[in-house]
């Protein structure tokens, strides 16, 4: 770096550009904070859906890290920084908590390899992937194996049987249910699925809500998971890992869209809180749509990006063919993000808004 020379009249220092010093934040720290913020929601999921959640996370993380390392090796790039930034771990955890807790191991492996190798690394690795890898992996599995991907466990208090750790492992790795237990005993439709199914049967919301599946806003269990993810999201805001723009615009757009239709016809449209607290809306708003790499970068762009996701979630949930819509909405808006960025450049200091004089 620098040393005084013998004459004491000069020294050599590395010549680097200003600024000399920086805020003590790093990509790996950002990712660690995200993981920390996920903890309450993940614990809630384990509480309601059992050990399978944890097994999925462990499996997905292992596969993701291995896949990342393997690709870096093939690309002849240093492996340690790529693993050390924790981005693969975040992708893996987000993927693992999006898929059913009973998903066969090879599907998790397939989804993770797809996410890390094809969606992330083939585009150039961290920072270059146009799509959210976790959501791309999720959608890949959803369109390929719709049955396995939509078989959810019933929340603990509604299930006739809760799977133990060993039973979860046997189910995930060997596909074997515990003896004497049928799928019906442990599984249940997700709230969004149940709502859709009942509405298709012509039932009114008021009748549907009489089912024990429902809690105060959304599905029982589910709404609490959403609350804990919300807590994590608030933590991220507080730590300034994310800004409010995307989550607030996404959730408010979803609430407004749902609210308008609910006001028009409350018998066939669930009230807005149901949309917010039943599926992956909260998780999506704070942890998935805010994935910096694939989201918008300008403030106005972020507002538009988030609001569009919120509206797409409502549209796909209400008229689309898939149970939850967050993954599709996020991926669709990932496509639009560069264009939105292009048209929402902030006004440069000293220039008029239409950019003359530039």
């Amino acid at each position: 770096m620098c040393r005084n020379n013998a004459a004491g009249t000069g020294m050599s220092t590395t010549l680097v550009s200003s600024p000399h010093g920086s805020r003590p934040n790093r990509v790996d720290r950002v990712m660690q904070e995200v993981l920390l913020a996920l903890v309450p929601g993940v614990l809630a999921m384990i509480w309601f859906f059992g050990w399978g959640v944890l097994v999925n996370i462990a499996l997905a993380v292992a596969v993701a890290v291995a896949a990342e390392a393997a690709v870096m090796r093939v690309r002849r790039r240093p492996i340690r920084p790529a693993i050390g930034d924790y981005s693969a771990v975040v992708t893996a955890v987000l993927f693992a908590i999006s898929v059913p807790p009973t998903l066969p191991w090879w599907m998790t492996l397939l989804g993770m390899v797809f996410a890390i190798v094809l969606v992330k690394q083939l585009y150039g690795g961290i920072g270059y992937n146009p799509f959210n890898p976790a959501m791309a992996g999720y959608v890949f599995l959803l369109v390929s194996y719709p049955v396995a991907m939509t078989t959810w466990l019933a929340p603990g208090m509604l299930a006739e049987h809760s799977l133990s750790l060993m039973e979860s492992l046997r189910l995930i790795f060997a596909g074997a249910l515990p003896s004497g237990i049928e799928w019906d005993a442990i599984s249940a439709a997700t709230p969004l699925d149940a709502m859709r199914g009942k509405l298709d049967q012509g039932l009114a919301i008021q009748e549907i809500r009489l089912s024990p599946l429902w809690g105060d806003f959304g599905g029982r269990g589910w709404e609490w998971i959403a609350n804990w993810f919300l807590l994590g999201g608030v933590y991220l805001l507080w730590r300034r890992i994310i800004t409010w723009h995307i989550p607030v615009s996404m959730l408010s757009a979803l609430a407004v869209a749902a609210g308008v239709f609910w006001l028009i016809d409350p018998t066939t449209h669930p009230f807005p809180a149901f949309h917010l607290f039943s599926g992956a809306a909260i998780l999506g708003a704070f942890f998935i749509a805010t994935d910096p790499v694939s989201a918008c970068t300008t403030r106005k762009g972020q507002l538009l990006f988030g609001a569009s996701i919120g509206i797409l979630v409502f549209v796909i949930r209400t008229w689309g063919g898939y149970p939850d819509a967050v993954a599709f909405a996020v991926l669709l808006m990932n496509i639009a993000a560069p264009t939105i960025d292009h048209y929402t450049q902030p006004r440069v200091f000293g220039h008029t808004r239409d950019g003359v004089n530039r």
Partner: protein
Amino acid sequence: MQRRNNGVAAGGRRQEAPPPRRLNDRDAKVKKDPTMKLFKIRGGVHPHDHKHLAAEQAIEDLPMPALLHIPLQQHIGAPAAPAVRRGQQVAKGDLLAHSQGAISAPVHAPTSGRVMGVGSYPAHHASGLSVRTVTLKPDGEDRWSDAIEGVADPFVLTPEEIAARVAAAGIVGMGGATFPSAVKLNLRNRYRLHTLVINGAECEPYLTCDDRLMREEADAVVDGIRILARGLGVERIIIAIENNKSEAQAAMAIAAAVDPRIRIARLPTRYPMGSERHLVQALTGQETPARGLTADIGVVVHNGATAFAVHEALRHGRPLVSRVVTVSGGAVARPRNLRVPLGARVQDLLDYCGGFTEEPAQLISGGPMMGQPLPETRVPMVKGSNGVLALTAREVARRESMPCIRCASCVQACPCGLVPLEMAAHTRAGDLEGAVGLGLMDCIGCGSCAYVCPAHIPLVQFFKYAKGEMAARGRSKQKLLETKRLAEQRTARIEAIQRAKREAMAKRKREQAATQAAAKAAAPIAPADVPAAALAGED
């Protein structure tokens, strides 16, 4: 920080600025002066200011070094031309070098002594290249020249006389931009000015020289400010000081009581509040047009230290031969604020401050956010150097850069409304025109983006490179155009010569033809005429 120099080259293009936004509640909390309404600036960062290291150190005089190396270019513009010869005895304040051209500044002797030579010496610059420098051996008497004479009442002078004296004293912008101050005073001839802003923001971390000067020399600074206002012919004066310098605010407020036109603005502490354009925006709510000057919106900004230099020049006739410098940083044994004769070496300052407690990872001239790395410690102090920082590895916290994760922290931090991550991506891909299209030329290089970047991407370095490369391309394009023009001129000239030759030939041919024709015409007649002539002759 006062890096945006007021280049006078650009013509004022007035344009519609957006409606000013008031400070939000968070900022209003720290706003104490009810009369001074402040406006919001975009972006910015809150670096740890580290000002406690030197803020309580009263200004001390640096003992006169054994040798002074006084560069002839300590300002923006043309270098001064030497006015002394080797061996010549000079008194303190004697002219060492003449100002050259419209934008230039003279250089004076910082002390009495003998000129050892006019040669080249490493410049106070990251490049470490040598510039023309007068080497002076102090005689230890520090005797002012007899020619030094102040003005009893500067307020009877005309603005022209004030500007002339400021120019003769070699005063330049002392916030770091080093633009000749007299040129800025003369802006009154071309712009309708109404406000003088004194930039006491000192938003760069570590630096406390302006803070100390305003605390200790408040009356002199205010006097200089009033002279500057007279020179500019303005009736509104705002002294802007950040809230982390409450003692300077108080001292200046007391000193400013002599003049009811002066108002003190208490600025929220936020980097880069001292950027000239952003300061003016915070005070007036108006944006300086791009490529324009603050004078376009009627405001001229001077640094507090410049005002002090003006006071010294007008009241006492003393040219600018010394300045206050902050020597600080974690690696400096005893951080200080020193009054330093121009031409003292960085090493002299560091020695006086007890040297290093540990090997500094970075030696900087100026503040950490925009300062330049210094290649060695024997470079001399110049008019624009406000700080010498020796930072430890922990303070610099340099890390390997990682790929951009597009977190947009830089977008939020940019005070100019730019999207640094996109500009960097274009620069990296070699698409400099694309970067320019995104506003590269509006970047003030404040470093807020690089400061917040979690991937530690050297964004400022990218932009400096891109700007330099664009300038180089501009030059080579200019050269190409010039060559083309010369070639075309040559072709045109050759063609003109050939055309002239052709025409001359054609003319000759025509003339020949005409004479021949005349001859021919004459010839057939002649025989007929001859007899007639003969006949006539025979007449």
